[in-house]
Each structure stands twice: as C-alpha cells, then as structure tokens.
C-alpha cells in the first residue's frame, strides 16, 4: 500500500508548481461556482416573496376620524400580527405628499375649507403577503369604505432577479466546465508520468483497486488542495461578497447569508472531483 501511495505522490514531487497552481486555480473557480450556485438557490425564495407582496389600501369612511383610524390599525395589528407593514395616511399627510408636485391642486383643495376632509382620501396602507381571508376581514370592517390593492408592484425587480438567476446558472456551468477542463488536462499530464508504473502494477497482478490507488492519491491531493482553497475563500471572502451583493438592491436585504457549512461541502466536492478524475489516469495505462 505504501509503495502505491508513493507512486501517487510522484506528480507532486516532479511537477509541484503545476499541481499547486492548478489546484489553487481550481479552488478559486470552485469558490466562484459555489457562490453562483448559492445565489441561484437563494433567488427563487426572494422572487416568490416579492411576487406575493401586495400593497393594500383600505379607504376609510368620511365619518371615521383620525383617532378611530389609529384604533383601527391597532385592531388590524392584533388580527394580522406583525407580518404586515402598516400605516395611516390622514388628509393632512396626503396633502403634504401631494404638495411637492401638485401645488396648484393643493391650492384648489384648500378652498373647500372643512369639507376638504370628506374630499381627500384617507386610508390605511398595508404592505406584505395577504391571504384571501385577510382581505375579506379588511373589507368586512364597517370603518372601511373600499379596498384597493396592487399585486405586481415588484414585477420589474422580479424580472431583474430572473435574469440574475439565469446568469448564475450559466456561471455555474461555465465554471464547472472550466474546472473539468483544468482537471482533465492536469490528470492527462499526470497520467503520462504514472502510466508506466500503473501498467506494471497491473501486469504484476495488482488488483483493480490497487491500480487505482496512485490515481486516487494524485487526484485526491489535487481535490483536497482545491477544496481547502475554495473553503478558505468561502469563509473569509464570502462575507465581503455577501455585503457587496446586498448593496446591489434593497430587495437583496432579504438574501440569507452564505452558510459556513458550505465550505466543508466545497472541500468534499473538490476531493470527490479529484478522486474521480483518477479514472482518466488509470484508463490511460494500456494493460
């Protein structure tokens, strides 16, 4: 066994820098691939959440005063919990919002005096995910005159996320193909270094497993170093990338942080890829 392990170490002795730099490069690519995959898997829940978000406006009866409106919000909060963002827009709040862009309209409304309160819409806005029963409850309230909702207000953001999702899939595929290509060429080179020894192992009656050991050692070490590179990058650079991604859009604030356990998965995946690549090495010996 120790003899076969020593055969597998030969590429690392004879071409140390080739093995090391290729492992490092593969590790960086694997980190990129892992990150793209994480974005790919994190985006659908975000899109689903945004797609379900609704802005509901409950317009109040003219006879509901500001005090009653605030009581109504408290009633809704106790009914729906804290999952909804809620607020009351009074007549004066409405005018303040309109003032900047529609000063002439505000001027005309001021001529109505006290009747203005009956003309200007006063409403409670609610933002979040609504079930049909929640909407029914709002409509059933006597203080509410009518209910209006907008369900597709994040449509353009969802489209952007969809593009990002597709881009991350493409990135995963491209990075995986690049890793496979580097690994294939590296193992082909290693196969040339080892094929005579492996063919002799087989010709001397070595078993199928024994003839695999040198390749497993060579490929496993490449995989291990790649995985460690990717894992270390995930732990130390992953957080910085996460902050960058979150700054791209307010919608990304909901993006969960990259789990640290993924670094271990990256080590495992890289080791598996390296060990699997030993097939190339063994099959290149003719015996």
């Amino acid at each position, binding site marked *: 066994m120790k*003899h076969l392990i020593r055969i597998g170490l030969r590429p690392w002795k004879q071409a140390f820098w080739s093995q090391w730099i290729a492992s490092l490069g593969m590790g960086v690519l694997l980190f990129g691939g892992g990150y793209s995959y994480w974005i790919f898997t994190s985006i659908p829940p975000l899109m689903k959440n945004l797609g379900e978000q609704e802005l509901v406006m409950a317009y109040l009866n003219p006879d509901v005063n500001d005090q009653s409106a605030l009581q109504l919000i408290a009633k809704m909060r106790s009914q729906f919990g804290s999952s909804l963002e809620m607020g009351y827009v009074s007549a004066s709040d409405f005018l303040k919002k309109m003032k900047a862009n529609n000063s002439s309209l505000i001027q005309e409304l001021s001529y109505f005096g006290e009747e203005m309160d009956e003309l200007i819409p006063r409403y409670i806005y609610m933002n979040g995910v609504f079930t049909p029963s929640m909407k029914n409850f709002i409509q059933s309230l006597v203080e509410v005159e009518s209910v209006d909702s907008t369900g597709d207000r994040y449509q353009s953001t969802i489209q952007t996320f969809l593009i990002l999702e597709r881009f991350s899939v493409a990135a995963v595929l491209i990075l995986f193909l690049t890793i496979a290509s580097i690994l294939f060429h590296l193992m082909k080179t290693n196969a040339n270094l080892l094929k005579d020894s492996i*063919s002799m192992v087989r010709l*001397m009656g070595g078993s199928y497993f024994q003839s695999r050991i040198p390749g497993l050692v060579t490929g496993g070490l490449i995989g291990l170093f790649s995985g460690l590179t990717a894992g270390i990058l995930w732990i130390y650079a992953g957080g910085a990338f996460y902050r960058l991604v979150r700054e791209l859009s307010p919608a990304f604030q909901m993006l969960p942080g990259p789990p640290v356990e993924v670094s271990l998965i990256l080590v495992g995946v890289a080791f598996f890829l390296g060990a699997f690549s030993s097939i190339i090495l063994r099959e290149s010996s003719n015996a």
Partner: protein
Amino acid sequence: MLTLRQVNKVYHGEKVLDQISFDVKRGNFLYLLGGSGAGKSTLLRMLATEELPSDGSLTVFGYDLKKVPPTTLKAMRQAIGYIPQKVRLIPDLTVFDNIALSLTLAGRRTLSLDAKSKIAELLGQLGLMSKSETLAGNLSGGESQRVAVARALVRSPELIIADEPTGAQDFNEVWAIMDLLVKASQRGAAVIVATHDREIIKRVQNSCLVLKEGRLQTQGYRERGAY
C-alpha cells in the same frame, strides 16, 4: 501453458503479427529471434497479457485471453514474470521496494524473512546488493534491467517472458541473468526470451522461434544443453 492459434495483431490497419501458431509447455525454454520490427515485442506483450490479439486464439494457463474474467486475469498475471524491453521500474521506490512490490501485489501484506532473504539473494546474484536502497530512478540502464529481472523472478513464476533481458549488460551480468533463467526453466517454469545475442543462443542451446515481418519463419527445437 501457452497455446497460440492463427494469432494476428493489427495496429492502425497494419498487420504486425500474421497467423502465429505455437505451443509452450511447462519447463520449455524458448528463444524468440527476429530483426528489428519483426514483431517480437508485440508478441511478448500479448503473451504477458498486456495486449489482446486482433484475431485468433491465445490461451494462457488454459484460459482464452479474450474471455478471461478479471479475477482470473489477476491470478494469471501473478503467475507470469514479465521483463519488458522498457523495464518500467518505479523510479520513486528503492531497488528493494521495486522487487518487494512484486510480492506485495501478489497478496503478501508484509514481507516474511524468507521473502526478504530471497530478494537479497537475487540482488546478490545479479550484482545489485550495494544498490538495494538506491532509488530506481538513479540506476543505469543495465542496472535497471537487472532489477527488472529480479522483480520478475522473485515470485518464482510459472511463465517467464523476457524481452531482450541482456541488451544493456556486460559479459558477466549476461551470464548471471541467463543462469537465473535457465534455473527457473529447470524447476519447471516456461521461459521465453527475445534476444539478438548469437553468443547466448550458441552457448545456451534451446528451441528457437524466428519471426520475420510478423510471420513465424522457423520453429527449431533443440535439446537443452550445458554452457
């Protein structure tokens, strides 16, 4: 032990071996002669189970090489001592470990004292005792060839296939190698040796197969003689 019937070998459309038929029995000592490119090494590679015939039947230890299951092939290979022309020693291992590997691959997890003394005896007979702990990658061509001989013989194989085993040797080493091969034959192993050395053939008289352009030209059988 070995039976070949109408064996052909074709590489990229070119016939390298053409209709080869002969038998080798236990204890036979056979020379394989022929010029460069006659097909000797190809034939020996097939006999060593490294390659399959393109056509015809090659039976080794009673098994058709084309149909032999992997476990049987492994056992067959453990009973064959192959000395290839390009010796293919493992350069990262010492001379001793290269020979020991041959034993451990045959299923011996740890080397017994007997096995170690057998390796030492072979190294002594081949003039390699002082090189025992030298890495094989640091050996000369002739030394490597002798290590390959020791590697093949250490398991006392039933079939020995040697492709130019004395090509890079001095006079004394040539006869040390031939002595070991003849002794192996005397204990019952079948030995096939490809050589160009007329002196060897003259002094160690045995049966000869002559290959020319992939065809078997002559099959001469002589009684084993002293040298």
